[in-house]
């Protein structure tokens, strides 16, 4: 039995289950027509990749690492902004009393983010929790100094 086109595409992507991979490989060893089909799929995939090259920008990485350092050292206004937004979301979905329970003294903003997202996942579901996470992280001022967060 010849493998379907879909199965051959998955095979060429190394995405078939181990038993399927073995079965298809055995089949290809003896079926010239399917070997040619698989070869054609590989060539077509190569064409889709033609011209692909890295666009990673070293300046972009430097900016990220610089923002990360500012965050770690408490020099970033983003942490204050994030905490404020998270407290508002906790208040909205879990009530004002929950804010004091979840946002305990000494909890960093990033820890509060993870804690509250776990909470939202339980109460709102994964998709809604992700939407809340995206919302609170949207357009934070990563480069703004901490002292300007309240300005």
């Amino acid at each position, binding site marked *: 039995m010849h493998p379907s086109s879909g199965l051959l595409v998955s095979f060429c992507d190394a995405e078939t289950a181990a038993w399927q991979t073995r079965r298809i490989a055995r089949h290809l060893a003896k079926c010239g027509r399917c070997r040619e089909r698989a070869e054609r799929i590989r060539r077509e995939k190569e064409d*889709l990749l033609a011209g692909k090259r890295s666009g990673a920008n070293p300046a972009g990485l430097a900016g990220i690492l610089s923002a990360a350092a500012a965050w770690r050292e408490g020099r970033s206004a983003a942490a204050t902004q994030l905490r404020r937004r998270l407290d508002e979301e906790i208040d909205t979905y879990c009530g004002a009393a929950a804010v004091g329970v979840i946002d305990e003294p000494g909890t960093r903003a990033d820890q509060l983010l993870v804690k509250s997202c776990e909470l939202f996942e339980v109460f709102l579901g994964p998709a809604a929790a992700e939407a809340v996470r995206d919302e609170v992280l949207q357009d934070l001022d990563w480069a703004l100094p901490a002292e300007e967060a309240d300005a």
Partner: protein
Amino acid sequence: MGLEQEIADLYIHEAGGMLRYAAALAPDGDIARDAVQEAFFRLFVCRSGGQSIASPKAWLFRVVRNYILDQRKAGARNTSSLESLLNVAGPALTDGGVHTSELLTVLPRIGLSPREIECVRLRTEDLRYEEIASVLGLQAGTVGALLARAHEKIRNAVSQKKKSGMFAGTLAREKRYAS
């Protein structure tokens, strides 16, 4: 390995592909670049807070996608569906930061659905089926089916259009297939 090193390694390996993907979805190059930066900032914050992320690569691509869709929604409030927001025509960046195959840029014209195009694009960035499924919110089996269907459409379009010169550059490369 420290978190910063982890982020740097991911950036070196994934930022190029993320930018290509972002450029295909974003209305302009600035939003594409912002999306990639934002994804890495967010990854840093979540990891720094103790979140474990099974596939950081899929997570990053998902954040890029959500970020751009949010930006596009903000800029087109009366657009009715998420699918219709996807500009899958091809890379919007032209400053050398992004380069992609000619064939990828003509996918919308040969009848691929936005979902199929996204699957093909993510696959060309070496995401596994499970990772593509996670980015697009689909089942892995659906990704396999979409890719198989996309492949079939591409093959049919290429063979039908060989003589029409619809994508001349691509077909110049295609000639070797016939030999």
